[in-house]
């Protein structure tokens, strides 16, 4: 039964509140000779040479603490190896803690996906392979060609062209020489539906 109280109070406040509410958007007047590098706060700037309609945001616009929700290194790791009940935690575990925390689960998951796993085309047994994967960072070569796998380069980056799904499937299901489980070692989609650009920004126009 608390209605009337609010109404009385709020009617008194209506005018002033509405004024505050309306004043934050429009009505900016920019003074013609104010610039964003004159060392003084002028025009509609909210700080010295920042804020307002003409200048970039002030440092205060970036304040605050940001807490992690998601992370990603190699493609599909959480999806493929994330077991029920661990995905949330995986996304908020720092890479330096991932191996001790998740490697055993990854190994179990690998062996449940492919019970016949011995080694893969890289010669890695289940423990070694999942040890590499559990620390979910993307290796990138400082020098030379970068590729997820191109025959000579192994995990030295990830280009837009790399068929990361086939590479992953092959390493999980293909056995030592890649010939095992032929219906599981490729999704038979070999390239993207659009060609990438050779120059920045490399990714191409939206459909």
């Amino acid at each position: 039964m608390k209605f009337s109280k609010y109404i009385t109070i709020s009617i008194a406040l209506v005018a002033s509140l509405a004024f505050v509410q309306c004043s934050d958007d429009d009505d900016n007047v920019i003074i013609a000779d104010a610039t964003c590098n004159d060392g003084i706060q002028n025009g509609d700037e909210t700080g010295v040479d920042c804020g307002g309609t003409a200048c970039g945001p002030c440092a205060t616009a970036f304040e605050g603490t940001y807490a992690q929700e998601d992370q990603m290194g190699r493609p599909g790791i959480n999806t493929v190896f994330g077991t029920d009940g661990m995905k949330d935690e995986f996304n908020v575990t720092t890479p330096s803690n991932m191996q001790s925390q998740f490697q055993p689960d990854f190994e179990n998951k690998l062996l449940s996906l492919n019970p016949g796993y011995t080694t893969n085309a890289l010669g890695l047994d289940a423990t070694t392979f999942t040890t590499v994967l559990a620390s979910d960072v993307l290796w990138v070569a400082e020098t030379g060609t970068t590729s997820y796998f191109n025959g000579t380069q192994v995990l030295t980056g990830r280009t837009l062209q790399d068929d990361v799904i086939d590479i992953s499937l092959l390493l999980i299901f293909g056995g030592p020489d890649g010939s095992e489980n032929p219906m599981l070692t490729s999704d038979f989609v070999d390239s993207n539906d659009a060609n990438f650009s050779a120059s920045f920004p490399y990714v191409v126009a939206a459909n």
Partner: protein
Amino acid sequence: MMKKLYLTLFLIALLNSCSDTKHTEQVTAKNDYEGYLATNTPTKDRIEQNQKFWSDRLERDSTQIVALSKLAGEYEGFFQATGDVKALQTSEKLLQQALANAGRGRDGYFRSIAKNYISQHRFKEAKTMLDSAYSYPDNKKATEMMLYDVHMELGNYSKANEFLGSIKDMSDFNYLIRLAKWSDYKGDLDSAIKYMEQAKDIAKASNRKPLMVWSYTNLADFYGHAGRIEEAYDLYLKTLKLEPDNAYAKKSIAWIVYSYEENSEEANRIIDSVMETRRAPDYWLLKAEMAEFENAPSEALQCQKKFIEMAMEEGYGDMYNTYLIEYLAATDPVQALSLAREEVSHRATPETYQLLALAQLENGNKEAALSIIQKHVEGKTYEPTALFTSARVYKANGMKEKVTPLKEELLGARFEVGPVVSKKIRDL
């Protein structure tokens, strides 16, 4: 909430409401919203384009789980944009197919289906879906948020409160809007507004339209409850600036024009423009009430008929049960009673119990009505509809001392209940 009262005005022959003293100041201005009354439908057009994109894929391969899910989402959006309830059912079917095909992430599909059921007011089934989702070890927090929502609807308030505790995070938009809802349920409108304002600030800081639209309209509603009409109006306008075809904001402005400014002609003009692009029974309710206000009973009767016809259409299921019970209480009390009993069995909330009490009252069982009010409504809700019914039941039972404070309370909610019902409240 306010519109739950529309039908009560059909219960008794009406007095001339135009003789009410006007208290209004002009808040709205035609020029503010005239541009938004255009009947182009950018949202609907976009959704139709996307529907085609995803359904073309399903034609090639009907098992594609991504297309099933995405298309379901588009149909849900289509319902929101057009009011076409069949789209909601199509969405449900697509989600069920997706769930049947899903090899992973099944909890997510259970939640999606639950959301669809909530839209259809199938709360018990929604809870069953969420219980299934909750049996999976992942995404617990998302499931808990929805379990809170559905337990609130079902009247399981202590259970809802438990889930609210488990999702607590004062920097989380999703938590704040639920905390606001909890505060409102508790009758603490100040806190409800405070938390909804905090959520709005997060939405505004995100600078993402859907979140801003959602929080602007919901905060505006709370401002309306509190009688802060100018602020409410300002937020509805801000909503339309972001989303010019937002029907909810337009309808809400129409309510201000009618209830606060008592300009039913202009309000009707706004509603008519909304009805050109969106179909929903409740527009007819609003028009019916405005006809009553204009002292045009035959027009009111016609609008009321249109409402009933539409609300009884198969697709709406239980979605308009509360309105139907209110209507039937006056015209067919026996049926109203059976429908109210059914509704209470679906969800035992103060709001459904007050409908049961109303139906009992209209069937001449004033003692039964009183017992329901005392046991299930009194002190358990602050909704004007429930307070109004309570007052009527007390009056019928000769408990004048109970009527007076409720009457005062309700007269303070004048904007929310509208001029016609306000008049009836004064006559209590």
